[in-house]
């Protein structure tokens, strides 16, 4: 297993980039945003994503997916980062699909084919506070009749306002349990969160929400491992998206440096900008290797894959942050205008950084893992 794409993976990348550039370039995001689209995301595009085999990249072939791995999911996530496309891919295609693959045969049959087809949106509800902290979940599920009664509040639920189903992580007696919840159940409150990057999330409140026993995904009290696996895959894909967005902002900036004149020179001739660009290029290459390392480690099922995921998410986050900051600064005044795209990259990177643990969260995991 190497840290470069195979021929098949390269073809997938080209297909994804080609599809997105044609059907969902940055203008697509702008249109959803400026028309104040009620959903903020296109279901039509999601179905097209399904038809292309993109939505089900991680879903087994018997459920209508492509049965591919983390590297392929990362390829998709990076492509989506480049075009800034709002898409249920990360929430449904990665996070929820991975959780559901640990569900019962019925649950799998009910949801995986529909996700693969781009027909269903399933949202994973984990975070509760301002920061990602799966170890500090306070939502509670108490036994109630044959099933459970859920109480709590969730935030940063990707696509939660358009979800066909929610997966809710809640405390049960001796651990964490994952529940499949119909958003139309009594007691479920959903508020769309319009975010700075015009991507989509929701706040979800659960007030005495009653679910049957068969709503449990996996085993009661045994949800932590399943959740952690899904989160790690999601983190690696978020890191891939960060790389995509950061690199795209960087490429745009390099093109600007090669053509824009000021003080009678091409600004790319200024050595100070050359060195900063070269440094940033190096960081981007390092981040790319880290993400590729995380994705291959997940595919190989390596013991320390979670730690490498943290390396990737932390590194890709910091690097993308630098990339968009340099992009705006090097563009000067026009970089501050809504008309130019660089600001959109800055916004998207901020959200992706916060998603599923920022660099600080993952550095903390590193410190803990190394015992200091």
């Amino acid at each position, binding site marked *: 297993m190497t840290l470069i794409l195979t021929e098949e993976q390269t073809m997938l990348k080209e297909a994804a980039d080609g599809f997105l550039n044609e059907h969902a370039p940055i203008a697509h995001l702008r249109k959803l945003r400026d028309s104040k689209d009620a959903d903020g995301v296109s279901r039509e595009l999601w179905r097209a994503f399904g038809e292309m085999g993109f939505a089900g990249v991680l879903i087994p072939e018997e459920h209508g997916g492509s049965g591919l791995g983390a590297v392929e999911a990362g390829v998709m996530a990076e492509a989506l980062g480049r075009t800034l496309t709002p898409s249920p891919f990360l929430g449904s295609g990665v996070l929820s699909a991975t959780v559901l693959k640990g569900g019962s045969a019925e649950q799998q049959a009910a949801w995986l084919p529909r996700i693969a087809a781009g027909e269903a949106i399933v949202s994973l509800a984990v975070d509760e506070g301002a920061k990602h902290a799966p170890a500090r979940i306070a939502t509670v599920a108490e036994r109630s009749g044959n099933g459970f009664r859920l109480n709590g509040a969730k*935030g940063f639920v990707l696509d939660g306002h358009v979800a066909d189903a929610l997966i809710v992580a809640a405390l049960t007696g001796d651990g964490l349990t994952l529940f499949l919840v119909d958003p139309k159940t009594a007691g479920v409150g959903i508020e769309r969160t*319009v975010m700075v990057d015009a991507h989509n999330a929701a706040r979800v409140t659960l007030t005495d929400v009653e679910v049957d026993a068969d709503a449990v995904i996996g085993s009661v009290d045994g949800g932590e491992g399943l959740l952690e696996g899904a989160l790690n895959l999601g983190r690696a894909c978020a890191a891939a998206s960060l790389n995509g967005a950061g690199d795209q902002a960087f490429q745009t900036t390099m093109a600007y440096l090669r053509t824009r004149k*000021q003080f009678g020179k091409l600004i790319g001739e200024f050595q100070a900008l050359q060195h900063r660009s070269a440094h940033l290029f190096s960081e981007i290459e390092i981040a790319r290797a880290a993400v590729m390392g995380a994705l291959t480690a997940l595919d190989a099922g390596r013991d320390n894959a979670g730690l490498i995921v943290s390396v990737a998410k932390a590194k890709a986050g910091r690097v993308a942050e630098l990339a968009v900051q340099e992009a705006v*600064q090097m563009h000067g005044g026009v970089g501050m205008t*809504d008309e130019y795209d660089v600001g959109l990259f*800055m916004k998207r990177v901020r959200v992706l950084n*916060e998603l599923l643990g*920022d660099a600080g969260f993952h550095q903390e995991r590193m410190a803990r893992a190394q015992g200091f």
Partner: protein
Amino acid sequence: MTDLDTFRAETRAWLEANCPAECRGPVESDEDRVWGGRNAVFPTPAHKTWLDRMGAKGWTAPEWPTVYGGGGLSREQAKVLHSEMRRIDAQAPLASFGVWMLGPALLAFGTEEQKQRFLPEIVRGEIRWCQGYSEPGAGSDLAAIQTRAEDKGDHWIVNGQKVWTSYADKADWIFCLVRTDPEASKHLGISFVLIDMATMGVSTRPITLISGKSPFCETFFDDVRVEKENLVGTLNRGWDVAKYLLAHERTMIGAMGELGGGRPIGQVATGSIGMDDDGRLDEPMLRARIAEMEIDAAAFRLAMERAGDQVKAGQAHPAIASMLKYYGSELNKRRHELLMAAGGSDALEWESDRSRHGSAARDWLRTKANSIEGGTSEVQLNIIAKHLLQLPGA
């Protein structure tokens, strides 16, 4: 009791009595600032009272001469006023390009008539000013100015376009650079003039920024008549005025983040994230970055104070303004990156009432312009390398 102690006691008493409760506490957002002007908007009626009272004492411009409406305070007294305002968390009564930028230039270059006419209005916040330097395609390169003023004897006719004119759509007057001698080489042949925005032929168009706001405009001059009495400084030497003023603008922009108030980041973070059992912010890595930033911020405040002392003592190198502008801008950007991290996913909200329509995110995005407006960070570094370090070819 020294004179300064007396002044402190009196100031404290006056502030206690005159600063309304509504005008105490951090300024949470750009929207809460009072900019004054003919169409002034106040967050609360108390803010108008506060401006009127401070303006009457000249304390919106504490160190300007009283003859022009200023406070007439010494530097030491001004420091006392500042520290006493901080003590009760008093908000600045006025945010004003007139006070920060044009005023100092008028005091240095203006005619007696200009000073008497414009300065008192600035102090009282009655006229709001904006700045017209940059032009399309010129960016940081002010020598490339194309807006031309044609000599018509007692007046000029001005034609051209400015960009990045802050709040031009809300300003009453503009101070700007125009080319009065098209033959002269780049830096020469430029003059510094004052133009009433209500003059026929002046129009503005807001530029929407990534923060979703439009504090900047494009400003168009279409056969605009400007009386010659509105020339500041010497004809064709507007560059001197502009440089002087830019130095002030730089200091001001550098200082804005620091002096603008706002809650300490650590407090924001513990509020949104919580503490561990040992009373520490429950995100150790973020905590370290905030602490490092607060060290730099405190050091920078001292550097601002020291620069003021140097100016007063006649020991200041003019290019120090570039250093402060550079450092303050970068610091403010870092500060808002950390505020965003401290706010977590809550700070990502863009439209909700809960987030005050995304004020954290919008303020964060706004700071990205700090290191571009008033001369980019790169321009400041060039100035430092050349004028303070005497590096060859800089």
